[in-house]
């Protein structure tokens, strides 16, 4: 399992050779791609909805200070507490402090990528607190000690047979001869096991899809209902999320709720939408007695005002990932980071450092599919290119690439030299060719590792064009000469 983004190339190679991964990734197009396409077609003017979503998120990103302070006031007015974490370590310490103050020993968790980002689970375990993931996919990868391979479908890389193996290995108190062949049997077993955790947990931790500044509410979408059980049953609910998730009010949330599930799973709306605002009131019969929100920066605020600022609009729907041909080839683990695919490629170099996550920005053909499906119109390839420019200007790009580019650019800026170089190259490739293609050369080894190179047809276009023009000019000259000679006669 790759946990280091610098090992991307090796991890990608391993992923490509993983026979179990390919069928799983093959389901991506039918499962998410076709679902989104149908949902968008049914909606009508989805383009206008995207524009509205973009405007809402742009407003939020450019008014974060105002909205976040308003959000804090609103949460406090409802009896909750807001905590501010500059980085992952601060967030972990804050959460541990909150849990320790309450004497909590066990914690149920709704799916939260920010808690993955700050590596909360291993930290809690090391400090004597047991976290139990309650989203089915997240629960499965937790049992397998793997990170999620996808931001909304954490166990997408696994077959149901692999899940069954995991359950047999983990749920050792159950009958070893039970049948886990059917998908439903897996779901029922997880429900039964998780029910015990829900009932005994001292605290529940969820993420948030949106924070509404005016109402002081956190909103999550789920399809399993685990989010509600996580936040309502224990005495304490802690929301852990990124500072950029805030929007002005629930009207804005309502617009984004039309965009999010359609872009993510192709659903018009998720099975559950939970609005979580403060602790249980005096006249209320259920809900947590304590409500905390931990707002994590962890590199986000430093993107404001940079060429990567638009990435903060992201609502984590995963449409870019689901439509990414690179993700479709290698899956999520190869990235060695919490956020994979195009959103990872645009975000990770900014928050993890270009020196660590340069591969993410480079491993793209700039096919543009991600930007085309992004519900809030983030120019993802443009931001990836920005990180490549940063990498280049810092001298971090591989020497083989920059040296090659340098030689090529020297010629490309000198048309006469370039034409000569191209002519020599065309001749050379024709000499090296066998039956129409070149099989290997000492340069461009990446190309020749997997393919041949078609032999040039003949001399370069420019050389042939020049020759034709000269012939034509001579012909005209000859004809002119002939006519003169005729006149002389």
């Amino acid at each position: 399992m790759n946990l280091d983004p610098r090992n991307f190339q090796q991890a990608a190679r391993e992923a490509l050779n993983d026979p179990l991964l390919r069928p799983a990734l093959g389901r991506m197009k039918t499962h998410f791609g076709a679902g989104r396409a149908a949902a968008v077609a049914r909606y009508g003017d989805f383009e206008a909805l995207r524009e509205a979503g973009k405007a809402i998120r742009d407003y939020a990103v450019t008014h974060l200070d105002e909205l976040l302070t308003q959000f804090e006031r609103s949460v406090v007015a409802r009896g909750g507490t807001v905590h501010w974490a500059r980085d992952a370590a601060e967030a972990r310490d804050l959460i541990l402090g909150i849990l320790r103050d309450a004497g909590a020993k066990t914690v149920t968790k709704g799916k939260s990528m920010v808690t993955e980002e700050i590596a909360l689970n291993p930290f809690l375990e090391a400090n004597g607190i047991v976290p139990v993931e309650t989203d089915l996919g997240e629960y499965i990868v937790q049992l397998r000690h793997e990170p999620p391979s996808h931001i909304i479908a954490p166990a997408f890389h696994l077959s149901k047979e692999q899940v069954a193996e995991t359950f047999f290995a983990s749920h050792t108190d159950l009958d070893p001869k039970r049948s886990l062949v059917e998908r439903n049997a897996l779901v029922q077993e997880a429900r039964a096991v998780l029910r015990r955790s829900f009932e005994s947990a001292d605290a529940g931790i969820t993420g948030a899809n949106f924070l509404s500044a005016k109402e002081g509410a956190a909103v999550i979408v789920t399809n399993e209902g685990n989010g509600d059980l996580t936040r309502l049953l224990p005495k304490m609910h802690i929301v852990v999320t990124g500072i950029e998730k805030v929007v002005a009010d629930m009207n804005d949330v309502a617009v984004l709720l039309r965009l999010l599930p359609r872009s993510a799973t192709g659903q018009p709306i998720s099975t559950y939408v939970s609005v979580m605002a403060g602790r249980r009131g005096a006249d209320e019969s259920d809900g947590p007695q304590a409500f905390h929100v931990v707002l994590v920066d962890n590199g986000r605020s430093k993107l404001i005002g940079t060429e990567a600022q638009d990435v903060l609009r992201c609502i984590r729907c995963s449409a870019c990932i689901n439509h990414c041909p690179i993700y479709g080839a290698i899956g999520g683990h190869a990235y060695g980071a919490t956020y994979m695919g195009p959103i990872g490629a645009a975000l990770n170099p900014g928050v993890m450092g270009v020196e660590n996550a340069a591969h993410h920005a480079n491993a793209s053909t700039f096919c543009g599919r991600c930007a085309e499906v992004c519900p809030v119109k983030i120019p993802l390839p443009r931001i990836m290119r920005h990180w490549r420019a940063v990498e280049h200007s810092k001298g971090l790009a591989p020497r083989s690439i920059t040296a090659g580019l340098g030689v090529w650019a020297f010629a490309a800026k000198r048309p006469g030299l370039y034409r000569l170089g191209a002519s020599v190259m065309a001749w050379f490739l024709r000499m090296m060719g066998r039956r129409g293609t070149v099989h290997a050369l000492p340069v461009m080894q990446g190309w020749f590792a997997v393919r041949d190179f078609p032999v040039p047809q003949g001399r370069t276009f420019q050389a042939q064009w020049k020759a034709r023009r000269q012939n034509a000019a001579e012909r005209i000259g000859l004809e002119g000469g002939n006519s003169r000679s005729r006149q002389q006669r």
Partner: protein
Amino acid sequence: MTAKPRVGLFVTCLVDLVRPQVGFAAVKLLEQAGCQVEVPAAQTCCGQPAWNAGADAHAVDIARQTIAAFEGFDHVVVPSGSCGGMIKRHYPEVFEKDEAWLARARALAAKTHELMSFLVKVRGMSGVTAQFAKTVCVHDSCSSLREMGVKAEPRALLGSVSGLTIDELKDQQTCCGFGGLFSVKYPEISERMADDKIADALSTKATVLTGGDLGCLLHLKGRMARQGKALEVRHAAEILADMGGEPALGEP
């Protein structure tokens, strides 16, 4: 009678080096469409490899050279969605912080067209006089599709070729895995993407894979040659200009 529009042909570095016939096909088609075609000698590459690698200083120099060479024409036509997209979509980004050059970049962008969309949309060409009695599948490059908005035009023109039948790929949206330097930097990922595209092409009735971008075609043909797969690959302009009888890409 109005004067013929002066068209500057941006040949592209790959056509210049590997497939000059595409350039001559483009000249022929443009002349058939009533244009006066010129090929400025001061062109090399559009600079996309530098721009995509983040080598912005190189991209700036090369873009300036291209703008200077082509801004005098009525139209700039490119037999590639990718190089066309570089000029049309990305040159203005290259000069975002340089007002004087930004204006020139935008002016050039406004009159730059992918070859087949120029023929159909600007010159009103509805068909060609060419013969090609084969079934083809059409690979849309990502830049043609998403940067230049070209999809119907190659099909309209190919559909007018005598004897030609189109059998479409099942997945017309997904990248073939070329991506310029990507194909060299991440060969194994590129390979998987190529193999998926090739499998799609082989599952059609087509014996010919065609398209408007030589980069994708070199990559796909190169991969097929390595595997001994026998689909004929050629640029759509060759078929449209009735040059489909010449040996295909990568064939002796």
